[in-house]
């Protein structure tokens, strides 16, 4: 009965536990099994608990697990799962080399959500509208999933399986996100359309281009809020690689994107509007990324 639904009162009871190490967190997950939930920033989980879409018996907070937080730059970048969106947007290596990710973080609706929300939470919540997902997809990121006994590395493009669904197994914790070093001569960009700024996306898109002179040698395009999961666009990319980076080529690729996506009509936008602006923002993002690739190569 939706009339009781509200975003203020957490009425179901649960136990709250705050482990200090990853090892402790694993044993707690094992002990409390499927009815336990991990808590990072809580900006998704708490809302869902108040709305009774989630009713965990135990809430295991990751706030004190220091090994999960922070950004390590080297050859590529490793971002701890509980690093806040705000910290990522301010990070110097992100600013220098991962423009799409930075723009995705800056596109978050409000400052308070940027400060509380984490990148791991954004991915594990697996909303089709998660802003960091398309950006991480074009940066070719992988996620590190751990249990007490095993570690596996999953490319992000294979991570999402449906709205709110991922390949994660019970007992697994997403510990970090790994981004390879961007190719020489590459540029990226992220754009988001929403009804008001303090809102989640009606459509968002990230692109990455590698240029050699006026030719496109590699490309990735990913969108959010246009299907059941964040998606990478294969046909459009195929149409661009090997071509000259012209406005006409970008326009044509954007049109393929608008055709390939599978958006729905909901309270945020109509299907028609989503297709229309997907084309616009993919085209605009391609133009920006192309420009950035030239600037990057010049440096």
């Amino acid at each position, binding site marked *: 009965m939706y009339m009781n639904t*509200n975003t203020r009162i957490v009425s179901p009871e649960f136990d709250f536990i705050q482990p200090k190490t990853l090892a402790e967190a694993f044993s707690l997950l094992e002990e409390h099994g499927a009815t336990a939930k991990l808590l990072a920033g809580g900006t998704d989980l708490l809302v869902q608990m108040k709305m009774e879409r989630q009713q965990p018996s135990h809430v295991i907070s990751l706030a004190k697990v220091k090994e999960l937080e922070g950004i390590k730059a080297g050859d590529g970048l490793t971002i701890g799962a509980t690093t806040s969106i705000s910290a990522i947007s301010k990070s110097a290596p992100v600013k220098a080399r991962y423009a799409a990710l930075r723009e995705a973080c800056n596109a978050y609706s409000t400052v308070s959500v940027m400060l509380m929300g984490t990148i791991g939470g954004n991915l594990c919540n697996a909303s089709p509208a998660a802003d960091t997902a398309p950006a991480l997809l074009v940066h070719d990121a992988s996620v590190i999933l751990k249990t007490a006994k095993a570690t596996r590395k999953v490319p992000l493009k294979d991570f999402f399986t449906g709205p709110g669904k991922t390949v994660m197994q019970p007992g697994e914790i997403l510990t970090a996100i790994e981004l390879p070093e961007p190719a020489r001569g590459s540029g990226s960009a992220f754009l988001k359309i929403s*009804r*008001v700024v303090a*809102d989640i996306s009606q459509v968002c898109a990230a692109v990455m281009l590698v240029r050699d002179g006026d030719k496109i040698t590699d490309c990735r395009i990913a969108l959010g809020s246009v299907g059941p999961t964040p998606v990478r666009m294969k046909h459009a990319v195929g149409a661009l690689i090997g071509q000259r980076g012209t406005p006409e080529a970008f326009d044509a690729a954007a049109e393929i994107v608008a055709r390939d996506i599978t958006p729905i009509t909901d*309270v*945020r936008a*109509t299907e028609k*509007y989503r297709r229309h*602006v997907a084309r616009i923002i993919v085209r605009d993002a391609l133009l920006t990324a192309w420009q950035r690739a030239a600037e990057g190569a010049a440096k």
Partner: protein
Amino acid sequence: MSATQLKSVGDSSWRKDGISKVTGSEQYAPDISVDRMWYGRVLRSPHAHARIVSVDTSAAEAMGAVCLTFADVPQTRYNERIVSTPPCLYRDRTVVADKARHVGEALVGVAAPTEELAEKALRSIKIEYEVLQVITTIEQAQKDGADPVHDTVLLNGEDKPIINNVAVQRTIDVGDTVKGFAESDFVIERSFKTGRIYHAQMEPKTVICQPEADGGITVWASTQSIHNTRILLGQIYGLPLNKVNVKKVALGGAFGSSIQMNSVTPIGVGLALKSGHPVKIATTREEDMHDHVRYPSEIKLKLGMKKDGTLIAGEMHAFEFKLKQYVGLGGTFWGQGPASKCIIRSDGVPELLKTGAELINWDKRPKPGSQTGRMRRGIGMARGFHTSGVGHAKASGAEMIDYSGAIVKLNEDGTVDLIQSLMDHGGGTNHAISKIVAEELGVPNHMVGISPCDTRTSLYDVTTHATRGIYAGGAAALKAAKAVKEQIIDWAARVLDVLPESLVIEPDQELGQGVIYCPNLAERRMTVGDLARYLHLNSLGTISSSQSMRQVNCPPAYVSYYVDVEVDTDTGQIHSRRAALGSDCGTVVNPALASGQLIGGLSKGQGYALTEDNQWDPVTGELASKGFWVDGKTPSISESPLVADIETHFAHTYEPTGPFGAKGLGEAAKNPAAAAFANAVYSALGIRFYELPITPEKVLAALAEQAAGKTARAARQAPAPVPVAE
């Protein structure tokens, strides 16, 4: 007196509640807790229209909760808004409803020692509904055989039948429109639609009710009028008014949404009386969004004009979809000036139009339809007004109640207490009124404190609505201050041994005091503090005055808007880039706060114009947003032009009937917004929009039609002015 001689009135002083507000120490109703307090929750209807067959609260009671159903509450109907006298006060409400008339209607109250338990108990209540026909449109409601939403409505003690869901019709005829249209050179007919807007006040509506040992109650509530809340609670629960005390606490915004007694207020009282515990109900955002609304409207307008643009005839049919689904033809928006005549004695419109045009570069505005690029700029203007108060309004033989009271007293050290029940919605009304008192008394502004008060210790004030706070409430405080000043002068004349007529009082900023002196006898002087101490130490009594008054005029507060927008023709988004906002509020009591009112009006008005439309599903009657604020699309600071790009300006007028020449400002600050934005979009695109909000989807559709060569939209919806046959 000209405004330039004023001392307190007219400067941008820090508001007296400023520090407590920015540091978070101000107490709003949701901050109040009392000993032994329980928490209440309200079970609301999931159906738009349903009869309640049975209610089973046994499981909730087994958990230790106390429940309040229709059977537990007084069955007499009331109108939650009592600014009109009984001959035009339609009563259709009970504390909890006997039948669900909209999704979110309050049906059962529940109280328990914790809010979580109250919520759990609420969810255990079983209600059997008989679902009735859902009525969401005017046409459906008026069809023969439509299910009646209300069977009858109570008017002046008489139970009046409602036929085809029309409870009341009001026709206002002024002059001879037939003749007017016949004499017109042009006649235009247009239809307009406006959206359904949530007030989006920051404070969640709250009530705390403490039952007292003597059978009375003490109440803290979100309200625009503590006295009307008291009167209603007394009437509903059969309590004499000296047993009902409503406390004045800071109000976290209202936008008119607390003009009536809020729906949770009498429920909290009922639960407190039944449980014997103090009970607090703080609504969730979601239930609040179902509880009040600015009604969407459809307006058919016909205007006749002369060749020079003079309007000589008009006809308007307005339908507003009430939250309650009975239909009131020509109903009005709460707080939007009722049938009252205002006498214009100050008019700053010409100045506003001139200054605003200069600030925005009106002469350089783009010619509609002249641009071709992706981003197109457009400048639009509109003006509007709101009466300051309701004046001396008689409508259909009934009266609008409109008066304010104030108590002003001189403390033993020369400081002053202003005791006034008038509510401040957050705009700084109480602060402004304290400046009016300081001005009259001749003491520095900081000497006048705004006292906490309640209905027992203050005089009646109708409600802060209709842009009346400073004009009407300020006038009552001024009247009390005048009486206090007279006593101060009288006593000082005796002490200083001079004639009262020879004395003046002026603020001395160095001393931080008001100084009473005789201009031609320099040594005959004392501070107001000296006088107050003298009176105290000689047991001569306290100087004070308590006064009530009604303003008989309600001068229009004019506002002009010039806005500059940028339309992205690829995404359809409209960005608000610059604005010049002008106000004729007479003497500006506090310029910084008055600017704030205009800038706030722009923000709220922009939502109305461009983004907000909290519509319901026509089949189920559920809100499309489900009550979630993120889906209410209220603009925030991010949608506003940069502060540096918003110019505010004020007309140099003096309203002879207002306190120190002041009129109102509040509601007027928003009125022209939608028209100004629509005109700016027209300037940018050459396309007229007659339906709010002007969303990106609508912009793209209109651009596509324009591109297809047919300005079909404009032609279909807005026929060009028709020359009247000679």
